C-alpha cells in the first residue's frame, strides 16, 4: 500500500458517529469521544430486554433527549420506565448525563472526552469515564472508528453501568449504515444502525417524506451476543 494511501487513512474526513441505546454518542452501551453535532437535538426511545434491565425481571424503556449544547459538550436527559407490574405499577427514574470533549481528533491524535452518566440521585445508571476515539477513512464509502475508554467507581452509585476498561469498533458503510461491536466492561454486544437517505429530492411529495425520514435512525442490537434490543431516534436542529 503506498505511503499516501496509508497516510490518507489517518486523515479524518467527516466523522460519522451515531448514538447508543441511551442516546449518548458512541456504540451500543459504550460512549465514544465524539459528541453530538453542535446545536443538534436528538429524541429517541430504546428497549432493553429484562436480562439487562435494572431489576432483571421486566424490560426497561429509555426515553431520551440528547442535545449538542455546546460544540464540545453533549447533554443527555433520559427517563427510564420499568414496567414492573409486581411492585405497585412500576417505576420511573430520571437520568442526566454530560460528556465533554476536551480534545478534537487530529491527523495522528484521537479525540478525547470525559463523561458522567446519572450524575445525581439514585445513580442506577452511573458511569464516570475517560474515552478516546480515532477514525480511519478507508475510502469515501467506508470509515472505521475505534473507541477505547476506562470507567472508574470514584462516586458512590447503586449500579455502575461501566466499570473498568471498555471499548469497541464500528464500520460505517456510507452515511447510512454502521456495524458495531463492543465490550461494555461486562459483556460483548453487537449491533447495526440504519438511517434513510434523502431520496427523491426533486419530487415535491416523496421528497418531503424522505426529507423527514432522513432525520430518523434505527438501531438493532444483540446484548451479550444473545438478547435483542433496539431503538429509534429523530434528529433535528431547532435553530435551523
Amino acid at each position, binding site marked *: 500500500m503506498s505511503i499516501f494511501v496509508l497516510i490518507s487513512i489517518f486523515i479524518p474526513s467527516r466523522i460519522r458517529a451515531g448514538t447508543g441505546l441511551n442516546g449518548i454518542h458512541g456504540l451500543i452501551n459504550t460512549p465514544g469521544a465524539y459528541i453530538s453535532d453542535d*446545536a443538534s*437535538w436528538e429524541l429517541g426511545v430504546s428497549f432493553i430486554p429484562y436480562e439487562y434491565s435494572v431489576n432483571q425481571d421486566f424490560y426497561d424503556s429509555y426515553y431520551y433527549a440528547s*442535545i449538542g*449544547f*455546546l*460544540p464540545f459538550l453533549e*447533554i443527555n*436527559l433520559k*427517563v427510564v*420506565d420499568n414496567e414492573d407490574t409486581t*411492585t*405497585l*405499577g*412500576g*417505576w*420511573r427514574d*430520571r437520568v*442526566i448525563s454530560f460528556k465533554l470533549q476536551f480534545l478534537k481528533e487530529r491527523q495522528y491524535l484521537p479525540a478525547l472526552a470525559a463523561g458522567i452518566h446519572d450524575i*445525581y*440521585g439514585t445513580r442506577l445508571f452511573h458511569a464516570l469515564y475517560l474515552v478516546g476515539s480515532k477514525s480511519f477513512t478507508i475510502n469515501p464509502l467506508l470509515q472505521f472508528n475505534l473507541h477505547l475508554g476506562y470507567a472508574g467507581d470514584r462516586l458512590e452509585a447503586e449500579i455502575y453501568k461501566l466499570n473498568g476498561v471498555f471499548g469497541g469498533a464500528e464500520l460505517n458503510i456510507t452515511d447510512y449504515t454502521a456495524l458495531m461491536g463492543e465490550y461494555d466492561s461486562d459483556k460483548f454486544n453487537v449491533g447495526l444502525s440504519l438511517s434513510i437517505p434523502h431520496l427523491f429530492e426533486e419530487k415535491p411529495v416523496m421528497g418531503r417524506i424522505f426529507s423527514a425520514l432522513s432525520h430518523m435512525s434505527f438501531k438493532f442490537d444483540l446484548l451479550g451476543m444473545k438478547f435483542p434490543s433496539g431503538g429509534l431516534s429523530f434528529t433535528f*436542529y*431547532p*435553530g*435551523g
Partner: protein
Amino acid sequence: MKQRAIESAVILMIMFHFIIALENSSFQVQTAVETVQEELVEKGFENVVVRQKSDELTIEYENRRYRNQISAIGVVLAIASDKEKTSETFHLIPKNRDIPLVTISTERKSYSDFMEGQISEETYADKIQITHHVSSPGEDHLFDYYQTSKANRSIWKLDLLLKPHVNMIFGGSPDKCLTELNLIPELSLSPITGMKISGMILLSVVDEISSWNKPVRPGRIVINQTFRLPQNLFFSATAGHFDLSNYGLSTELVWLTEKNLSLGFSSAYTGSYSYYEHVWEHLEMDNWTNLGRVSYKVPAWDFTASLDFGQFLYNDRGVRMNLSRDFGETTFGFFAYVTDEDKEGGFMIKFPISPVQKSSVGRCRINFPDSFTWTYRYSSTRSAKYLKNGNSIDSFMKTLYPSHIINNLKKIKQAKKFI
C-alpha cells in the same frame, strides 16, 4: 440704470427659484419619512417615530405583531429601505412599553448586499452595529433633523393572553407521573410609558399535585413600572399579588454593559396570602429576598451563564448557577444550586407556541404568549426559588441582546415573507 434693474430682477428671480427648490426638496423628505411611518403603523408596529438627520434615518418602534423580534427588525428595515431612498444609514430602536431597548445600526449598502446574498451572515454580523446605548436627537445639536410625531401609541390597549401552564412530578409508584395543567388567561394594559397593569386567573384542567382542589382561583395581579436610566441602567418596581401565594413589593436594578456582561440586584419584601371561599387573607409581610446576579453572554454560541447569590424566596441562602443556550427561538438550559438547606438542580426548556405573525393590537386583542417555558426541578424542594412577579428585566428586554441578534441575522432575510 436700465441694465442694473434687469440684473437685479434676474438675481431676485434666481433667488426666488432657489428658495422654492429648497422648500420642495424638504417637502419630499418629509413625505418619504412620513410614508415609512405610515407603512410601519399599517404593519402593526406601535409607538412609531421616524427621524431623518442628514443621510441617517432613525426609526423607533414597538413590536407586538411578530413573534420573533429579529423578524420585526427585518420588516422595519425592508420598509425603510424601500420607501426612503436617500438615507445611507439606518438606526433602529426597538422599544417595550415605549422604552427604548437597544440600537441597531446598519449601512444601506451592507443591508442590501446581505439581502441579495452578496455577503454572508458572518460578514454582515461584522458590519451591523448593535449597542445598548440609545442616543436622543438632541445629543448632536450641530445637525438639524426632521422627526414625525409618535404614531399608533400602545397605551390603554388591552391584551388578553391565554397561557398554558404545566407542572409534572416524576417519581416512584404508585403514580409514575403526576401532572398539573392549568389554562391562565392574563389581561394587561399599559396606561403610561413603562407601566403595566396585569391580572390573571388560573383555570384548572388537570390537578394531581396541588391541594387547591378548586377549578378557578386567582393568580398574579400586579402593577409594574419600569424605567430606563442613564448608562444602560434599567430599574423595575412591581407591587401586588405574585405567584406561589406571595404578595408585596419587589424591585430590580440591572446594568447592561457593552461587553455582554450584565450586573443586577433584586430585592423583595413579601408576605403570604390565601384565598378561600371568596375571602382573601394576608399574613404579615416579613420576608426579604435579596439576590445579586452576574450574567455573561457568549456571542459565538448564543449562550448565557449567570450566577445568583444571596437570600432566595424561602429565606435560604446560597448560590445558583444557570446555563442556557438559545437555539433560534428555542432555549434549553440547566441550573444547579447550593444553599444552606439543599443542593440540587434541574433544567428548563422554552419553545415558541404563538403564530409567527399575530393580529395587530387594537383596543383589545386575544392571543397566545410567544413561548412556553417549562422548568423541571429534580425534586420538589423549595430551595433557591425566585420570586415570580412576571416583570423581570430580562423578559422586558424581549431577547433583544446584541449576542442574540447577531446569532439570528438570518431572520432578517426571512422577514421578506411578511412584506
